[in-house]
């Protein structure tokens, strides 16, 4: 971040030195843009930090700390979006006692922009999930769960385009197959559709029709499975195009850093997942220019 500020300040101070500097910078200043994406996954009702004597995660996590961190990052860059990749529910008595009310209320206070739906978000049934919706002031995105004729109909969008500082950020959600994982009585008439086919369609829509500059998938499919037939984030990445970032969940995978992988057009993109229980916050910064400095076509990725 500091390197970047340094470069932009240096450029600004040399703006009047020569014509080259002037023309480069007038455009650069008007259209150089920075979008920060923050994300969590599989928080599983972990509102308090782990106890200091916890064997695996001593004194880690905690929603009030996450709130401070999100505030600081938003102060640094107001053009920040905050997402969750599902399994908000289940894992502490906060869920058993209050059914997800506190989770949704707190995520609303933290100004989450959207979440996708994980398998455990069905744990109190569709009626249990629907009952908590009034407390959620953020979007639920899922493109491959068809909620027609269920209580959730009309409360979940396949995707949403967020306009942030002139950048169009298209975000869509994907959920894991429910049969065999979630009791039918809980998900009822929810229909699971092939996530990879849906992702191919939606990412094209976001690119061509919605003209998005940045495309993000919130996925609760899981990072990677050996079974070639079981969809995961890496298979999703390899069989689609136009997606810049897959924010994953479900497998509680603690990636040290986002994975750089290739899409089906051999273009680099990112897959990330930050473990579980609110122990980490994922942060991806995207820097745009006006497309005039066509020195190179590629995107530089630093992780």
């Amino acid at each position, binding site marked *: 971040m500091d390197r970047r500020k340094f470069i932009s300040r240096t450029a600004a101070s040399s703006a009047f030195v020569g014509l080259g500097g*002037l*023309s480069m910078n*007038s*455009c650069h200043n008007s*259209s150089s843009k920075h979008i920060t994406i923050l994300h969590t996954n599989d928080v599983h009702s972990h509102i*308090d*930090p782990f106890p200091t004597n916890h064997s695996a995660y001593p004194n880690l996590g905690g*929603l*009030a*700390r*996450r*709130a*401070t*961190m999100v505030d*600081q990052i938003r102060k640094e860059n107001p053009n920040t979006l905050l997402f969750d990749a599902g399994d908000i529910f*289940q*894992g*502490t*008595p906060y869920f*058993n*006692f209050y059914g997800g009310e*506190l989770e949704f*209320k*707190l995520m609303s206070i*933290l100004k989450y922009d959207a979440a996708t739906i994980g398998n455990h978000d069905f744990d*109190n049934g569709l009626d249990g999930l629907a009952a908590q919706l009034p407390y959620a002031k953020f979007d639920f995105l899922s493109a491959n769960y068809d909620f027609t004729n269920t209580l959730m109909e009309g409360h979940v969008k396949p995707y949403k385009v967020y306009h942030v500082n002139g*950048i169009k950020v298209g975000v869509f959600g994907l959920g894991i197959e429910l*049969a*065999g994982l979630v*009791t*039918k*009585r809980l998900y009822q008439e929810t229909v699971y559709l092939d996530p990879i086919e849906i992702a191919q369609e939606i990412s094209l829509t976001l690119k061509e029709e919605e003209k998005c*500059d940045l495309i993000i998938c919130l996925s609760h499919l899981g990072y990677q499975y050996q079974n070639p037939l079981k969809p995961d984030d890496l298979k999703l990445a390899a069989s689609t195009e136009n997606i*810049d970032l897959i924010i994953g969940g479900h497998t509680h995978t603690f*990636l*040290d*850093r*986002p994975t750089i992988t290739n899409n089906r057009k051999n273009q680099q993109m*990112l897959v*990330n997942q930050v473990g579980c229980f*609110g*122990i*980490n*916050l*994922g*942060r*991806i*910064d*995207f*820097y*745009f*220019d*006006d*497309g*005039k400095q066509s020195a190179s076509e590629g*995107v*530089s*990725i*630093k*992780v």
Partner: protein
Amino acid sequence: MDLKNKHFVIIVTCVIFLACKESVPKLRDIEGQRVQVNYSATPKDSIENFIAPYRNRINQVLDSVLAFAPKAISKTDGSLNTTAGNLMSDIVMQEVNPVFNARTGKKIDFVLLNFGSIRSVISAGNITERTAYEVMPFENSVVVAELDGKAIRAMVSFLIKSTVAHPISGIQIIVDKNKSLQAVNIQGQPFDENRTYFVATSDYLVTGGDKMDFFKDYISLTDSDYLIRNTMVDYFKKMDTITAFEDDRFITVD
């Protein structure tokens, strides 16, 4: 600034303005990192205050001591049967049987739960309602499935092939060292393939969870409306000391 320069600046500005207006944002750089949520971030006061009443109520309910465990009870301290698995399935048998009997006049023959649903060790020391939440955080309830001999046989094969010790109570399975079945006893009697059995289990398993497909062909199904967690809480309330042992309910013989 002379006139010539002024014109020049105006023209350049116009060109730049037009050029900028036509520009399309182009992604150039991406930076990604994982930020740990730890002590270095001060908890936000307003959030803490918001959580406090919810937390206080939970602690009030969960932290009252119900019983005492002299030794840790774990699902990984045995191979074919474990202390935690035996405790859980025995609790389900003891607490749910009277409910099932009152509703149907029948008795539970045996219990089968799944290894994965035991989510925590019971540490040595005081047992509270919180312990029950840690071991069984899920809102699963006990159901009783009536299964025929064929389904029971499939179940026994499943349990023998399984790499983890699924909790059982009321049934005994004996295999040899090649994992070949030697005997199955239910309520102390040899398994009779020609009759049906009442198997208490979790609603999660009977609806396709953990690939226990033999439950799909149940002859009848009775809801107990009894949460597995509540069977534990009720049991802990009755007992002063909680102990559990590995035994001969699932063993290998030479």
